[in-house]
């Protein structure tokens, strides 16, 4: 027992040496017991006080700190029939979506293997390998740039696959997406082209009965959005718009907080984007093999508003021009709005005012790099403000401001009582609720950490856009959203970002774009279904 018995002790009292432990020994045994007693008394006093406080708060709020009570299953049952997929637009986003469907490019696999060896926090490869097997085949690739089409074909037959699935035969390349849609070789397509093509491609796919997963933002213009909506509504296809926040556990939890009316009357919602990198401002790499010989420029331009001579900048950095997209409005306001729409179910606003300018990236772009939009929802008695800059990286987050509390939503979620709340007044006064600290926090997947590889990645992680959690397991939100789309194709039901949500996203963002471009306040006319 005692590990000090080898030490010599010379000056013990004679009685003890004689073998009488007796009273003194007993006293020495028990003398530290009062210390334990005092400790336990204080420990339980504090614990009981903390528990009472916590229970009082939780009872008041009616939600728990654990995961969302109900998380919709992205995949309702094991994937039965195999679905044949086509990818239209295999650029950065397209390649990512294909990977999340189970087809990583071999170079990506190798890069991630090395990255994980260098820093174990890089878990991208592990997350890829642990993806659910969606039972899909990538049978068709369409891209106007030869290099990207070839990369799609390479990904389609990759040997490293989730769940140890064997490699598939190579996908067939189609020069024109329409040939793919009519080939009989695809059941569904992922559209990840620039925004100006989304509407026409979806309309054509719907006409052929091909299911569509379309990247956000849904369309480049209001007219395209309405036409696309009609085409999807009048068809039997399953449509999913690529807002991966729909699968974020923190966002689902945030909706629970709203449903429990913890914030009181919400009068202001603030969504923000701050980025401070060239990449974040869409100054993307120009591929060394990009040329008029390797890029079908005419097909790229397609329905673009203005036809211009071949331009590498425009091809590889298309988000910088209104001819192909809508800049901050389409790329990032759309995310913030869809998150707010998911949590509050706001729908299309009554009016919008937007402003901004090209203040930092004077590189020939015509979309603003600083952009603010203010939306009014008089029926809901609230304003939604979006504020963004591409030349400052200070994180501002997404805030829901109620009379009784403020909710901040990112990868995590926190709710802080308002100093002057009516509902929590008594509890603030008697010290149960401290308005200087969150009274409620929720951190999905708290037993794991994310590799933060860049400021942009950090932005996405903080928004819950790259990874989310299911039962503490890190999952890609993209993967879950694609999985949900395939599940609805097989088993019926409704996708979480269907054409109704898509139209709301498109019209809301177009209102800000119109307001900015036309320099006036715009309104949505719900009867005539147009922006006025």
């Amino acid at each position, binding site marked *: *027992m*005692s*590990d*000090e*018995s080898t*030490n010599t*002790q*010379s*000056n*013990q009292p004679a009685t*003890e*040496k*004689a*073998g*009488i*432990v007796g009273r003194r*020994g*007993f006293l*020495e*045994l028990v*003398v*530290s017991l009062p*210390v*334990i007693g005092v*400790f336990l008394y204080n*420990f339980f006093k504090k*614990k009981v006080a903390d528990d009472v406080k916590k229970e009082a708060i939780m009872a008041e709020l009616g939600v728990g*700190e654990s995961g969302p009570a109900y998380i919709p299953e992205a995949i309702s049952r094991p994937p039965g029939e195999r679905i044949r997929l086509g990818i239209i637009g295999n650029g950065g986003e397209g390649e990512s979506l294909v990977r999340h469907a189970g087809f990583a490019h071999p170079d990506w696999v190798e890069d991630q293997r090395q990255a994980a060896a260098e*820093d*174990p*926090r890089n*878990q991208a490869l592990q997350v890829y390998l642990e993806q659910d097997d969606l039972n899909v085949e990538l049978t068709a690739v369409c891209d106007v740039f030869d290099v990207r089409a070839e990369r799609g074909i390479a990904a389609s037959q990759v040997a490293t696959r989730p769940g140890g699935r064997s490699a598939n035969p190579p996908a067939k390349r189609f020069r024109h997406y329409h040939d793919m849609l009519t080939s009989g070789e695809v059941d569904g397509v992922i559209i990840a082209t620039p925004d100006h093509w989304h509407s026409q491609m979806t309309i054509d796919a719907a006409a052929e009965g091909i299911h569509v997963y379309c990247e956000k933002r849904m369309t480049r213009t209001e007219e395209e959005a309405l036409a696309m909506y009609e085409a999807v509504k009048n068809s039997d296809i399953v449509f999913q718009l690529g807002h991966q926040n729909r699968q974020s556990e923190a966002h689902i939890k945030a909706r629970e907080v709203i449903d429990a009316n913890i914030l009181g009357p919400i009068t202001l919602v603030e969504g923000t984007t701050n980025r401070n990198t060239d990449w974040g401002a869409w100054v993307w790499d120009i591929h060394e093999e990009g040329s008029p010989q390797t890029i079908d420029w005419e097909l790229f331009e397609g329905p673009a508003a203005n036809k211009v001579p071949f331009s590498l900048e425009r091809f590889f950095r298309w988000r910088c021009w209104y001819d192909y997209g809508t800049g901050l409005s389409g790329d990032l306001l759309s995310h913030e709005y869809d998150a707010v729409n998911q949590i509050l179910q706001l729908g299309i606003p009554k009016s919008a005012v937007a402003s901004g300018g090209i203040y930092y990236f004077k590189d020939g772009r015509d979309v603003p790099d600083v952009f603010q939009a203010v939306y009014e929802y008089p029926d809901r008695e609230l304003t939604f403000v979006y504020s963004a800059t591409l030349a400052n990286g200070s994180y501002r987050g997404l805030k829901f401001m109620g009379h009784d509390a403020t909710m901040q939503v990112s990868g995590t979620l926190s709710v802080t009582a308002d100093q002057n709340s009516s509902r929590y007044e008594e509890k603030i006064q008697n010290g149960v609720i401290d308005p200087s600290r969150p009274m409620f926090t929720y*951190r999905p997947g*708290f*037993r*794991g*950490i994310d*590799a933060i590889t860049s400021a942009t990645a950090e932005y996405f992680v903080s928004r819950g856009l790259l990874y989310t959690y299911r039962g503490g397991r890190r999952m890609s939100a993209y993967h879950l959203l694609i999985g949900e789309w395939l599940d609805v194709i097989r088993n019926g039901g409704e996708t979480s970002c269907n054409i109704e949500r898509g139209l709301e996203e498109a019209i809301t963002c177009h209102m800000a774009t119109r307001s900015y471009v036309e320099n006036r306040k715009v309104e949505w006319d719900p009867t005539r279904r147009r922006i006025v």
Partner: protein
Amino acid sequence: MIQGAAADPGRWTRFQSIALVTLRILIGWHFLYEGLAKLVNPYWTSADYLAGSQWWFSGLFISIATSPTLLTLVDYINVWGLTLIGLCLILGLMTRTATVAGIVLLALYYIAAPPFAGLSYAMPAEGSYLVVNKVLIELVALVALLAFPTGRILGVDRVIFLMRRTGALAQA
């Protein structure tokens, strides 16, 4: 260990003995509460601390943080290690083993995130530290207790020691 008169508790003054025993009990109290506070908090994990690790051993600590199995194990060892070490230090039970274990734990905390010039941490400290922080001071205080063992001045170790010496254990 230190030999001679200085290390002989029998020659310490009452003041010296009380000071050393008090130090042992207070460090024990701190360990015990750190352990129990983590034990009763279902959201506690060492992941953030480990993931923020810097300096030579950061690779090791970060790889623990990223491995769910290792992390669970390390969290478990940490919580129960702190609790048991704390309890033993207060009671004066297996004092030497508990002291050495405490030194090892504190050394791990220290080398995971040493406050050296040039290293900065996301988690803010409550004070200002350069090279020396409270972890290091607590560690060295335990080293001092190893040099001046108090388990047999006041503690269960003393009773066990006396019982052994008197043959009480053998008789039982």
